[in-house]
């Protein structure tokens, strides 16, 4: 081995486990001996044996280096291993008795551990439930979600077309894939049986599936009846048969056992119910209310770009191999459809697709609570240390009388383990409360919230965490027992060194961890403020919205759709409470809006796929209702009929890219490979379309009459905005009422206010901010308690010394500043280390940050100042008391 092998590096690291003086005296030489020995071992071909011996040495050496041999009892007095084991119950009993005798100490210690273990248990339940709990599907790791996306921008995803499925099936089945299935999200209305008399009930989250869906996903046994299969599919038709979720079965059908096999009317069609699904099955994610069959019709335009596809890999196929097959299939797809030039198909793991989006947030939280546990450990260690130094005389006497070190150790350990277990028990209560907060706050964006449970694996975690922290925490005072110079303790020399230095280090550690957490919370809070302050390009005040997906059968023709939406908007505008109304194919901030990116060409150029813009069809009145500003030219109005000149509005982002900032009004551009040309008549403002953190994308708007669409979102702006959120809700209700008045069999699919949409967009940052802020507050509190405890302990041990100083003429405020300085120095060191820690840990938060750098100096400085200010405040309490020590009393006591 040449100089500096990896083992030697680890050996150098292990030197930090030795006492400082020892390391200074021998460290260099030990490293040299280590290197010589390693060289010889390698030469003799005994390297592995050497490494094992080195590992043992790294554990034994630091203990040996602390052992003071004069007190080693002779062999016949050494207790046997059995004797040591039998004392454990006794030690536990003793520990309990000591804890009962010091209720205040026990209460504080248990509370500290409860916070640490409780927070960790709750977050563990979420991490385990969402990321690790096995999915109730057959071999879910063989399931792949296929996505169609721009080759160079994997995040730019488009749905599949019904026509693609044939190509996918032919290209994949038998070539690494066992089966392929597709589905799309829909919502339907339930009429008759289940719903009340004459009412229609809207059912969201409906999965329209093909015949192989349940078989390909490997669904578990249904609760009642059977799953859907090929028998239930009629090409070109939807809703032949359906499976209900358990919750829908309960809420709408009162768990009617005769339901399976009978028929129900959805969207005006008679549907046979063939089975009931157990709650929480991820098909393809938990929370689906209804599964219905649909035979895809390749000519049905409303399905284009909306299908999601899953595949099941053959047992021996890897994802990498599957990717190869997918590349060939992608080629085939682009050959049949010019629009897909530059697109690729990729496979991601099913589970990854289901929960992958939640992983960063959960991991950031797991990191945060791990810091809290460390902090709680440091806090408890510091408390125990204070006790040990108070019992120093007692321990020293017992050691001098021949008490074996293992006995003393095991007593210390027993106490800290009992404390940690009690803390863990109390922590479960906290975990329960946090668990509730987690599942309700995270419901909108955490997948599998139903799988977040406090059950056996989670309880096992809490127990393991308690025992492990108990042992680790117990180690510090134990090492301290052996580090102390026994002879001088017995002689009554009060050294104010060792224990207080260790406590200082522990307190600094607590401050560092609290500061790191507080910086994280600060960054997230700033992000939340920045996100809330974003001008999204539209106004939400008083605006209500409703999704209206017209029935294919009665409104299948373009002309019927024009008539329906025209009449609906007329009726809506005639209502006194509504100021403006319009409809769009894509509402900003709406999580279920379809992204519709189209390649376009400006005059004299070819479509190359590199330039794409978001396509939306809107009715007159939409821009006004949404408050999207018209910057130049004119808005769309009644002139823009089906037969008139094809026109469009473009947004500023599109002007920047397509016309390089020149005035586009009067110019034309084309889509669909030059098959449709439009004249630009106006320029409108940019939108943050997908949410406040989105950048402005190129967009163009075409008149609804020239491009009808069956799935629209209708928006209405209230006439009286002073009513606040009630105004918006009223506007949303107005849409539903107008729709019901127009055609009772065509109700709206869901209605909501734009303000609620905007608030939802902030759910995840709000969730992270709230939790991190709570963690930071708790940890600052613990750190403050740590500083207080350290100073109080030091003052108690130094009363004589302080009294002497006062007797010799020191002023009370000198003593105060002496004490405060001790607290502030520890806090300052901790704050500096904490800032470094925060800088390293910020990498976990980067994906969530918006409008602020991970290294934002203001947040760092403010947090550091808070920490130091807190330390001054909390140091003043014991300091002022120390300043009032009466020298005569203290000095006469000894």
């Amino acid at each position, binding site marked *: 081995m040449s100089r500096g092998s990896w083992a030697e590096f680890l050996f150098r690291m292990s030197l930090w486990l030795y006492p400082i003086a020892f390391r200074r005296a021998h460290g260099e030489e030990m490293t040299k001996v280590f290197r010589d020995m390693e060289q010889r071992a390698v030469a003799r071909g005994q390297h592995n044996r050497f490494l094992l011996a080195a590992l043992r040495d790294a554990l034994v050496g630091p203990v040996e280096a602390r052992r003071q041999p*004069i007190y080693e009892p002779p062999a016949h007095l050494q207790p046997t291993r059995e004797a040591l084991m039998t004392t454990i119950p006794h030690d536990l009993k003793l520990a309990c008795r000591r804890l009962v005798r010091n209720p205040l100490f026990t209460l504080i210690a248990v509370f500290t551990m409860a916070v640490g273990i409780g927070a960790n248990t709750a977050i563990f339940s979420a991490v385990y439930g969402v990321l690790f709990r096995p999915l109730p599907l057959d071999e879910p790791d063989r399931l792949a979600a296929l996505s169609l996306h721009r080759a160079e921008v994997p995040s730019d995803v488009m749905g599949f077309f019904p026509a693609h499925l044939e190509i996918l099936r032919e290209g994949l089945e038998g070539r690494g894939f066992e089966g392929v299935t597709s589905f799309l999200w829909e919502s339907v209305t339930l009429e008759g049986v289940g719903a009340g008399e004459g009412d229609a009930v809207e059912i969201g989250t409906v999965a329209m599936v093909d015949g192989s869906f349940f078989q390909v996903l490997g669904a578990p046994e249904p609760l009642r009846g059977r799953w859907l299969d090929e028998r239930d599919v009629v090409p070109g038709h939807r809703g032949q048969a359906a499976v209900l979720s358990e919750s829908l079965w309960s809420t709408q059908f009162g768990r009617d056992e005769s339901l399976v096999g009978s028929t129900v009317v959805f969207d005006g069609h008679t549907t046979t119910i063939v089975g009931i699904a157990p709650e929480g099955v991820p098909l393809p994610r938990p929370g689906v209310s209804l599964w219905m069959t649909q035979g895809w019709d390749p000519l049905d335009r409303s399905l284009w770009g909306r299908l999601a596809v899953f595949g099941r890999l053959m047992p021996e196929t890897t994802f990498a191999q599957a990717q190869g097959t997918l590349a060939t299939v992608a080629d085939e797809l682009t050959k049949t459809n010019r629009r897909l030039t530059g697109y690729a198909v990729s496979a991601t793991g099913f589970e990854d697709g289901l929960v992958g989006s939640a992983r960063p947030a959960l991991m950031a939280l797991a990191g945060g609570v791990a810091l809290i546990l460390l902090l709680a450990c440091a806090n408890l260690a510091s408390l125990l240390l204070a006790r040990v130094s108070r019992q120093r005389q007692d321990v020293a006497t017992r050691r001098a009388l021949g008490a074996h070190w293992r006995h003393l150790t095991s007593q210390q350990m027993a106490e800290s383990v009992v404390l940690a277990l009690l803390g863990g028990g109390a922590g479960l209560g906290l975990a329960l409360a946090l668990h509730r907060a987690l599942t309700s706050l995270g419901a909108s964006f955490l997948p599998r919230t139903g799988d977040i449970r406090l059950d056996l694996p989670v309880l096992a975690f809490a127990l393991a965490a308690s025992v492990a922290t108990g042992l680790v925490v117990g180690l510090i005072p134990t090492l301290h027992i052996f580090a102390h110079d026994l002879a001088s303790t017995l002689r009554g020399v009060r050294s104010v060194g060792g224990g207080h230095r260790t406590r200082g280090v522990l307190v600094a550690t607590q401050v560092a961890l609290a500061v790191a957490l507080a910086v994280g919370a600060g960054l997230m809070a700033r992000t939340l403020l920045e996100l809330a302050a974003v001008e999204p390009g539209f106004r939400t005040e008083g605006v209500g919205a409703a999704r209206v997906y017209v029935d294919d059968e009665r409104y299948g023709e373009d002309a019927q759709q024009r008539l329906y939406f025209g009449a609906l908007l007329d009726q809506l505008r005639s209502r006194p409470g509504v100021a403006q109304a319009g409809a769009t194919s894509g509402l900003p901030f709406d999580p279920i809006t379809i992204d519709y990116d189209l390649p376009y060409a400006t005059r004299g150029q070819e479509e190359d796929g590199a330039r794409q813009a978001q396509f939306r069809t809107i009715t007159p009145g939409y821009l006004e209702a949404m408050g999207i500003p018209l910057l130049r030219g004119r808005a769309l109005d009644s002139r823009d009929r089906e037969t008139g000149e094809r026109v469009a509005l473009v947004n500023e982002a599109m002007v920047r890219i397509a016309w390089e900032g020149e005035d586009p009004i009067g110019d034309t551009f084309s889509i669909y490979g030059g098959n449709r040309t439009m004249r630009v008549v106006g320029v409108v403002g940019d939108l943050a379309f997908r949410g406040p953190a989105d950048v402005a994308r190129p967009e163009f708007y075409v008149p609804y009459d020239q491009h009808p669409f069956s799935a629209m979102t209708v928006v209405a702006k209230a006439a009286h905005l002073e009513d606040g959120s009630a105004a918006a809700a009223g506007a949303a209700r107005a849409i539903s009422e107008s729709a019901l008045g127009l055609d009772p069999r065509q109700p709206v699919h869901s209605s909501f206010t734009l303000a609620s949409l905007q608030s939802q967009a902030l759910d995840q940052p709000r969730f992270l901010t709230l939790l991190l802020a709570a963690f930071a507050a708790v940890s600052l509190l613990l750190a403050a308690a740590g500083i207080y405890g350290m100073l109080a302990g030091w003052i108690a041990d130094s009363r004589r010394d302080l009294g002497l100083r006062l007797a010799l003429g020191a002023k009370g405020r000198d003593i105060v500043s002496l004490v405060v300085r001790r607290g502030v120095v520890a806090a300052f060191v901790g704050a500096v280390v904490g800032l470094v820690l925060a800088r390293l840990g910020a990498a976990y938060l980067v994906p969530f940050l918006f409008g602020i750098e991970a290294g934002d100096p203001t947040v760092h400085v403010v947090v550091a100042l808070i920490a130091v200010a807190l330390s001054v405040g909390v140091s003043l309490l014991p300091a002022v008391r120390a300043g009032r020590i009466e020298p005569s009393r203290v000095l006469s006591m000894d």
Partner: protein
Amino acid sequence: MTSRTLKSREFHVLVALADEPLHGYQMAQRMEEDSEGRMRIMPGNLYAILQRLTDEGLIQPLARSPRGPSDDSRRRYFELTPAGRRALASEGLRLERLSARLRSRRLLDLDGEEAAP
């Protein structure tokens, strides 16, 4: 100071130093040879023992290398102090008495090694 029983490894360190001052690596090698390969000691343990024996005044580090200034300055050599020689002798005697007793009861045919605790 030395009324206590020496531990086996400590005794072996003293034995290794009986002839001449040695540095750490030489001691480890010498101990291995003396014990016919049965006593292998690693740096952490070795220096903990050296520190302890130094604290008790049984050995002391040499101010400079016995091989002159050409030797690696990081190598510190240790030698026995007079107290160390006495401790070594008394431990040797104790072991000898023990082996004599074993031999008188015909329990020992070869020279024993592991008599110390």
